[in-house]
């Protein structure tokens, strides 16, 4: 099978300012990354990277960003990511940095990695927590994520059943 091979880059937006979160959206992230590539690699690099470049997934609450680009040029993209210094949207501009977590060949692997990564984060959080309330809170959320998994599973089954009929 012949297909276009892509690389998916999973990054995290690191920012001091919590207000930065409202800037985390598809367009703003995309523009910032493009801008960085343009600065670092010039027009040629920008053109190379913009083939099929998109922001596939953004989560403002966790600061997760999933970028896609062609396999041939993902090095250009990855090397440009540390140069993203700020996000700008709706006239506001907040300083931040992109922290690359994972580079994968499919969205699926990135998702799998993200699950693992988040789990690890939660566990470390649990270990490092200082008071009882925090602990309880984190435990609760940990439990919730494993519980809802089954629920969603069962819900899906129902979906399937209704659709085929």
């Amino acid at each position, binding site marked *: 099978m012949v297909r276009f091979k892509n690389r998916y880059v999973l990054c995290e937006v690191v920012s001091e300012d919590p207000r930065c979160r409202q800037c985390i959206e598809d367009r703003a992230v995309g523009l910032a990354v493009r801008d960085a590539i343009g600065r670092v690699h010039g027009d040629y690099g920008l053109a190379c990277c913009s083939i099929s470049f998109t922001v596939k997934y*953004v989560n403002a*609450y966790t600061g997760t960003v999933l970028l896609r680009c062609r396999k041939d040029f993902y090095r250009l993209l990855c090397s440009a990511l540390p140069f993203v210094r700020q996000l700008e949207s*709706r006239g506001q501009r907040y300083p931040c940095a992109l922290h690359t977590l994972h580079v994968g060949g499919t969205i699926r692997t990135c998702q799998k990695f993200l699950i693992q990564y988040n789990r690890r984060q939660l566990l470390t959080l649990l270990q490092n927590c200082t008071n009882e309330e*925090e602990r309880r809170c984190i435990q609760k959320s940990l439990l919730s994520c494993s519980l809802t*998994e089954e629920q*969603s599973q069962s819900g899906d089954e129902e979906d399937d059943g209704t659709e085929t009929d």
Partner: protein
Amino acid sequence: MSGAREKKRAKKMRNQPASVTLPAEPGPFPGGGGGRACPPPGDVCSEQQYHQQKFLNQSSGPSYRKDQYFAKGQNRGERGRGRGGWQGGRQSISEEMPKYITVSTFAQARAAEINAMLKAVAQKSSNSLVFQTLPRHMRRRAMSHNIKRLPRRLQEIARKEAEKAVHQKKEQSKTKCRKARRRHINLVAEFNRRQRKNIWLETHIWHAKRFHMAKKWGYCLGNSPTEKSYRACYRAMAKHCLLQDLSYYCCLELTGKENELLKPLARICSTETGLTFEEASCLSGRFEGSLNLYQADRYPEGMLGPVTFIWKPRDGSENRQLWIWVHPALKQDVLRELKTIFQCSEPEEIYIPEPVTTSIQEQKQTDIVPSLGKKRKMEDKEGEKAVPVKKIIGDGTRDAFQSYSWISQTTGIVISDRTMEILRYRLIGPLSHSVLTETLKAASLQTEMADSETGLNNWWVENCKDSEKVSLHQCQSAIFELLEGISSPSEMPPGTILGLTVGDPRVNLPKKKTKAVPDFEKYQDNDKVRQLYLEGVPVDCAHSFIWDQDICKNVTENKISEQDLNHMRAQLLVPGSHLDLGPSESKIPILLVQQPGKMAGEDRPGWGSGWDIYLPKGWGMAFWIPFIYRGVRVGGLQEALKHSEYQRIPHTPNDFPDCQAGMQFAKELETSLLEKFKRRPPAKRVNYVKLGTLSPFFCPWGQLTKNWEGRMKASGELLHPSSPHPERCATEGHSFCDPEAEVLKEASPETGEVETMEVTSSEGVLKTEDVTGTQNFGERDETMTSDFIVLRSEKLLMQLSAWCYPTAGKDRRVRLVSRLGQKEMTEDVFMPILMSYPRALVWVTLSLLRKGNPELHAMICIPTEDDLLHLSKDKLFCGPQEPKHCDIFKHKVQKLKEEKKKKKDNRKALEGDPLNVPDKETTEEHEDLILGLWSGALPDVTSHCSRTLLGYVTRGDFSLAAGCGEALGFVSLTGLLYMLHRQPADKKGLVLLRTPASLQYRFARLNIEV
């Protein structure tokens, strides 16, 4: 992107998490006003809830609706912000006590994301099977059917998948293996079962392998060949020979004394329309006649349909036999009418002996002897597990236990329904008689019995003892052989009948398929051929044994089966040599009837002529295959339609809008066309309202005639000169309309005598109108009821035909007009016609002057003066354009759509759960408002467009025979006279033609062919 693709993509993306962004800034929305009291800003619990809900929403809903979800989330966020602005609040909180908040939200957000991702990862998103998602090295061959071969984690999903596949698969209904199914007995039983609903002709299996079959009129008929053959069939018709199986035509046999038959029959036909049953040449049995039947004494209303008839030649006895051949769609009507006019009741078993002995014996025998018809057989062998002996030869037009013959108690006239008893093949084309002469060989004389037990040929042996009959047979066969010398069947007198007895055609089957070509040189100066030309076939030769039911039965029962014949062929000493059956060869009585072809009009006389051959039943395939081996081409219903189209004659039942079958046909056509129209996506449909086409799928004849009548009345009687003309023809000036009115007014005082007649007739008409008028109020369907007649009076048609020709200019035909000896077209000539037929249609043929391909239901319109002027100036002028109409229903349709949408949304909002949706909505969707079609009652059809409507086309296509577009249709008589009267002398008979899906008018010449 098409809907299907979108759907597929949506399904694929269903489980993919959508991007999550923070709600927008406090915008212009007033916010607030939420029913639920919002918790104080920064409340962990509420935030948590919010997150969870948000993620749940996302993960459970398909992502292509993400906008919606976002909108919801945004609203919610705004609401919250409106109350206290949790965005701002949180900011402040994060500054104040960042740690506490950060940890819990952090944890919540992670957990939610894990959920979303888990869902995305756990579900396989593509449309592949489970084992296809496995890497190749883990796949096993048996995985596809044995679930246990899969890794255990995938087994559950695979099980579900497998169930689904089984569910979708068709249920295996075949209980027996193929070998058992193909066993002869079972096969025949299966065939019998399959033709219980729609009867098969004898050539069904042959046709089913090569034709698209259509179920029509209770039969399975070949519609058109599967191969490409449109042009080839035309060529066969025009140059060689086209074969058609017309066995589905119904034969009604009347038996009784000549006078007693003729008297009631005169009531159902009229001398005005042409022949009657009394026509001398037909009555002698020499020629076949064709006529239109009407309900008793109701001419010109109450059309029953066209029939052909054959009288049995006089053979000394008092009783005459008459065959009436009817199309199956008309049969029930005709039969009912015949039964009433002859006062026939059911005879059958309750029958009391009558003085008429011969016919009764016949009847009784048909009743007693178990014939091959399935109903009778079923009766006989009820209860037993009888092995079906033979293919059923039944009848699709009558019910299982219905009687098939009736007798009149007073006159002793017997009507019997002999449908499917006699087969009828039609050969069309100039070489059809060379095909006939090559295929059929007159039976040899025979004086000794072949096999006394079976009774094979004993009738023939009997006959051969009678020297008179022998000489008759010799005479018949001599004439039959002479037929080869005639170049085309059209050279024989129309409807010539030739009876014949022939040998088994299977015996002299050629080894290869060959093309039958006549050898004219042999007959170049043969006096006998010339004599045949001049005199036609003598009366005696029309006699055939096929009239005798006993002989027919004998012939049918004693047919040598194909298997035996092949067996005998195999035992020949020299393989492939001619098989001589000797005395055991079957003798089959047949009847050959010449079909006249094109008789009306001036061009292509005799086009499409041919022969009909009538055979006793059971012999269908035995004659069919030999014909095929002579290189004929076989046509189906479509080819028959084309044949009549090129001959420009009306086709049964398509072109008889005034008889029941025609109306039924029109209704079926409308529904099928409408279905086809609805199957298109709405954006790709033609908007007929915009095109100004009121009725693209049917012809509102009733309304057309009514409107024209109304126009005439308005212009002729009610109008005083100064008042404006009621019609809305803006392009036609008043100057154009008014003279007519004046002329009409002038006309009436001049011819006082005529006027009184007019008054009476119009009064009568008005009365009838009132009677019918009550039925005709209201819906569109009822415009189909026959409140109009089709003009079939030959005299009037001749007159009209002459008027249609231009009387000046280079196109004029003085010769023709003078030959017809017609009067000039003046008011006092046509006014009486107009008055006696206020609601009449005329069958017309149209040939396009230039470009254009007329279609079904195209509109025939009257050209304006400007159009004609333009045409005379510019010879290349194609025709005017209809201005675009505006769609007055678009608004309503859109409103309806919106309402529907709203209702849908409401429902969705109300019930989150997929509750069972009541079917109410689906019924509501079937509104009769369809975008692009006129709904409700039609307005005045004549004046809806810029050119006045005259009539409709019922059949139109590019004619291969004429080399230009040709159309056949009906126009309103009133409209036609109106138009002809006002057209300039050199442009008479020019009309405009517009197809339903086009704005372009095309010029066409209108003809009436008599």
